[in-house]
């Protein structure tokens, strides 16, 4: 597959999954436990996506994995702390 098409596809999948999780958050408003699970899934998904994307790009390295992990943790914390 063409490299740029693959990259676009990966970004579309990232956006689509995050949008779906956002919809689920809205749907499960009032159910705090379910919302916490959704946020954890979103953070984990983002870290895995980053790892996969950089593996394909052949740029994966520990610093990059830690960077994605920190974004995942910080993003998750910002939302979970409200529940």
């Amino acid at each position: 597959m063409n490299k740029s098409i693959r990259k676009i596809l990966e970004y579309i999948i990232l956006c689509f999954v995050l949008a779906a999780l956002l919809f689920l958050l809205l749907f499960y408003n009032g159910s705090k436990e379910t919302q916490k699970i959704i946020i954890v899934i979103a953070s984990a998904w983002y870290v895995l996506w980053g790892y996969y994307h950089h593996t394909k790009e052949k740029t994966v390295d520990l610093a990059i994995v830690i960077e994605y992990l920190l974004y995942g943790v910080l993003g998750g914390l910002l939302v979970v702390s409200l529940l």
Partner: protein
Amino acid sequence: MGLCKKFDIESVIVHNGFCMLKVLHHLFLPHQHNNHKAKILWTRSLLILVGLFVMGRSIVDITIGLRPGILGYASQIDVGKIVEYTNQNRIKSGAEKVTLNAQLNAAAAAKVDDMFKENYWAHVSPKGTEPWTFISNAGYKYQHAGENLARDFSNSKDVVNAWMNSPSHKKNLLDKRYKDMGLAVKDGYLNGVETTIVVQIFAVAPTKSSVGKIAADSISTNEVLAQEEFKPTAEISPLSLSKVWSASFAVLILFALVMDWIFVLRYNLIRISGKTWAHLTFMWFVLLAIFVIRQGIIL
């Protein structure tokens, strides 16, 4: 001498302003001195941001624990406004206004106290006590009665809106049979977490003559009750404060990421790092999630 002093102060101000700009430039814009990546987006800075966020939240939580009056959980929930919004919705639907009733207020307060004491969040207590028991114990003889519960809301309008968005609660709220209402808003601990519970009880007495008597007896007493027990205590609700605190962090990172993206594009920078577009997408998700999440629960 005076001129020299003035000159000194001006130069200090200019120097400080320049230093501040330099720090902001270093924090938010990629350039050769920060390895072409805004300092705030460095791994170390992200770790510091995580620490700062946790510290800020802890300060809010500790403040609430030590001085509940400073950030009262029920500070934004006003009984008068719940009555107002309830009656607005009832009038819109063609139902009559309900009036606060002292006995039903007492029943609602007893229900909240029981929920905190027995540590439960349900219409029926773990011991099997039904809502109607509290109404009868308060001395109100009812023909029909209903109960709406809410917790963790930051303001009165959201409470009533949440009830209106739920078919079963809406049915209670707009039921044409009800004439009287009881309300209680109290702070306490459920499963070790500080929370605010709102109990709304609707009822109607069995005969027309007794309804008239109860309503007439209770109006003045209720006004005093509402003023004394449920007067707002603080301007800031910790629930809103938490939202603002989380949103500020998300906006700060989003701003740095947007600046980073613009500079990377403009100067065609190549660096080994995570993808700014991906981080932007994720942080947008986080910001939207912060606003989408409704903190309150109804039952």
